[in-house]
């Protein structure tokens, strides 16, 4: 094509584009106006994390009109966004102790990823077989999608990017105001389940919260690659970095264990830096925790790359948020004590089990661990999920009423899943019986939980 002809053709093409209908679709946006919405529902779940997802699904399956508000962009919380994608512990002493909806989600994620379960018949001895070998690796993205699918299937109205700003109880119903991107929502509901982990909704509603002066550190979870641990000369690398390098090499989700005979699958990619004082109870504090976690990881990466054999270390993955261990707890009708936990006390209103060592991360330098004695499994009573002086209000997750040591074990994911299901079942029945959750007939509540796969102590 000659140059003149080419220019002429280009001109014609340009004219064609300019005059196409696509070019005429541009509009001037109307001035910003906050969209005001009103939602009427039976049960409002605040927080779509580890416990909230399960609570929402149980509420929906129980036949209640259910709304879930989540301040982030996906479900799963610590299990997904926080990157602690190996929930546990569901089994104790050769038996399953936490089942139900949490286990259902975990199993779907395991099956869809061709993962295998740890051999739960091999009981940890806490020396050569540590308790965490019973935690189940899940693909976090997959887990978040399955959780979302199950919520939708259960008819849950999912509202991402929303967070409550005021909560008031009037004439037997809650009025919850939330804000989200361009939206202000007024939600009228009969029951609230606070699954924020920080007892945020309980605090807004005016219930008393408790907190330790010094809380456990958060963890910013990541994965590194690009080096061969076995070929490193560890004598040339400061000892404090060995576990960082070794831990990551132990953890390889590409490796699939073929057999469960005397074997466990590898744990998920897991490496972390501590974030001291990490707190997610306000956006400002969570922002601070995230910035500190990322900065700490950058510093670590730069340091690791100075060691021989580590020059090409790469950051393979870092989670979007710092995962939080401890902030606020409610002051409930019953406070689960350390002694209750380690003795496996069963209450008349125990609705779910919890199995984990007492696990207190102290100052980010050491972990106080206390293992449960053989055949001991702790339980969670309904009263620990209900704030004192409340009506039609429950919590589920790490903010349940408990002392610090008990909470250091209760806070783990499987226990939170069990709590979520128990709280939602109580809320469903409270609506059906027109009572507050504390007055729900316990036999009926336990029966409902069992029908939905929950494993109820002594029921």
């Amino acid at each position, binding site marked *: 094509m000659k140059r003149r002809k080419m220019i002429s053709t280009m001109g014609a093409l340009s004219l064609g584009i300019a005059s196409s209908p696509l070019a005429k679709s541009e509009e001037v946006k109307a001035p910003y106006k906050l969209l005001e919405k009103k939602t009427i529902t039976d049960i409002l779940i605040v927080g779509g994390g580890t416990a909230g997802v399960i609570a929402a699904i149980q509420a*929906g*399956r*129980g*036949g209640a*009109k259910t709304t879930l508000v989540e301040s982030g962009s996906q479900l799963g919380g610590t299990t997904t966004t926080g990157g602690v994608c190996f929930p546990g512990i569901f*089994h104790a002493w*050769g*038996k*399953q102790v936490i*089942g*139900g909806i949490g*286990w*259902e989600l975990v*199993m779907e994620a395991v*099956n869809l990823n061709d993962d295998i*379960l740890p*051999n*739960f*018949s*091999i009981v940890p001895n806490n020396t*050569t*077989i540590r308790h965490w070998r019973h935690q189940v690796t899940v693909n976090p993205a997959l887990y978040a999608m399955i959780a979302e699918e199950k919520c939708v*299937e*259960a*008819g849950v109205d999912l509202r991402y990017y929303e967070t409550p700003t005021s909560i008031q109880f009037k004439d037997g119903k809650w009025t919850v105001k939330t804000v989200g991107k361009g939206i202000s929502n007024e939600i009228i509901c009969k029951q609230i389940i606070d699954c924020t982990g920080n007892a945020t909704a309980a605090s807004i509603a005016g219930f008393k919260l408790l907190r330790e002066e010094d809380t456990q550190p958060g963890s910013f979870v990541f994965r590194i690659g690009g080096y061969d641990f076995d070929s490193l000369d560890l004598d040339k690398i400061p000892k404090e970095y060995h576990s960082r390098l070794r831990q990551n090499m132990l953890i390889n989700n590409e490796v699939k264990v073929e*057999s*469960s*005979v*005397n074997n466990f699958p590898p744990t998920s990619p897991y490496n972390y830096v501590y974030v001291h004082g990490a707190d997610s109870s306000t956006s400002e504090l969570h922002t601070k925790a995230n910035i500190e976690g990322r900065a700490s990881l950058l510093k670590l990466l730069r340091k690791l790359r100075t060691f021989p054999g580590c020059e090409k270390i790469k950051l393979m993955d870092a989670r979007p948020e710092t995962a939080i261990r401890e902030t606020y707890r409610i002051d409930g009708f019953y406070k689960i004590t350390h002694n209750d936990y380690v003795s496996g006390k069963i209450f008349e209103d125990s609705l779910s089990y919890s199995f984990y060592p007492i696990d207190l991360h102290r100052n980010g330098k050491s972990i106080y661990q206390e293992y449960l004695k053989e055949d001991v499994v702790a339980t969670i009573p309904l009263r620990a999920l209900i704030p004192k002086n409340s009506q039609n209000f429950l919590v589920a997750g790490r903010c349940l009423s408990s002392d610090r040591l008990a909470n250091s074990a209760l806070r783990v994911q499987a226990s939170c899943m069990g709590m979520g299901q128990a709280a939602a079942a109580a809320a469903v029945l409270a609506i059906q019986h027109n009572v507050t959750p504390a007055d729900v007939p316990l036999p009926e509540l336990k029966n409902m939980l*069992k*029908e*939905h*796969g929950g494993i109820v102590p002594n029921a």
Partner: protein
Amino acid sequence: MINWIKGLLVGALLLPFSFENGEDIRYFQSSTIPLIDSTDLIINTINDSVLSLDIKQVTKSDGTPLHYFIELKEGVCFENECRPLDILLYWNITGRYLGFELLDGEFLSKYDHEPFNYKEYEQLHQLLADPFLPLGNYTFEELVKRPDTVSQSLDAVSGATMKDVMEYIVPGAAYTTHKLWNIIHGPIQQQVSELTAQQLNASLFNKILQSSDQSDQTWALERIALLWDLDNLVIEVLEEILIYGEHFQAYLLLKSLSSKQLESEHLQLALFSILGKVDYSIENMIFDKLLEAPRLHGSIVGASIPILKALSGPQLGKLLKVFTHHKVKNAALYQALSEMVPNENSFVERQLLQYLENQAEIAD
């Protein structure tokens, strides 16, 4: 030499070898299939390509594998003084460690060639039986800070042993412990396991499942799919495991059933009949396995109708997915489901309506 016979099952169960001279040392665990008649044995030699060792497979005359062993000969040296070690190492048919033997006055010794005492043999036997020791994570060089360039065949030189793994070695015998443990839990284990798997039949499968050892059961359950046909006896045993067995074994069983095996009407009915008798999560797995079956037998549809109302909402949903997947068309089922609408539970009602509407569309 004292004849120490220890373990859950004494070495008398390994009668092919006549150890009645009072000079032999034997430590054994319980094998899956105990030996009763020593005259009914055949020893086959299998060359091990990995370690260049001969693996001996001991079978009954009918071909049933009983156990495997190797004869390990190593030089054990101290201060340039060496003595040969001649030890027989045994594996169960499922690959787990079975025991060891020292024949004809042979004995194990520590760094100064001092013979093991009773407690040390006992400790070694227990250590070798533990598949979870961290000994496989360390080379011998890492395990022991070696003072000089002595040969690898030296036993437990007197240097410091890594503190973390100290409790997992017989004091003064780091080399022996590390060497034997790594052989026992090394490639031969996998090799003998595969040899047994090649000979697996329903009879052997049932025998292994009856083992009191959890790892034997796990081994068998992982290999159900190798069975060409699940006869009545096998199905009966599987039902018992699902109902009475540990949760993980039930999970493994269901996970391992092949699509071809699931074609069996007998198996489908057996699985369906235990609904209500097993854990909720196992019930969910049964629904999932029925999805994997090449086809769903009409008898399952018939058996499901009486229990529809007893199922929880989520499980009803799972069953409806099974019916949808297998394109079930059954008037009685349709009628029974229709009668459940309206339903007091909106979640249940939505699922019913969705299924019934899909059926109506297909019928159109």
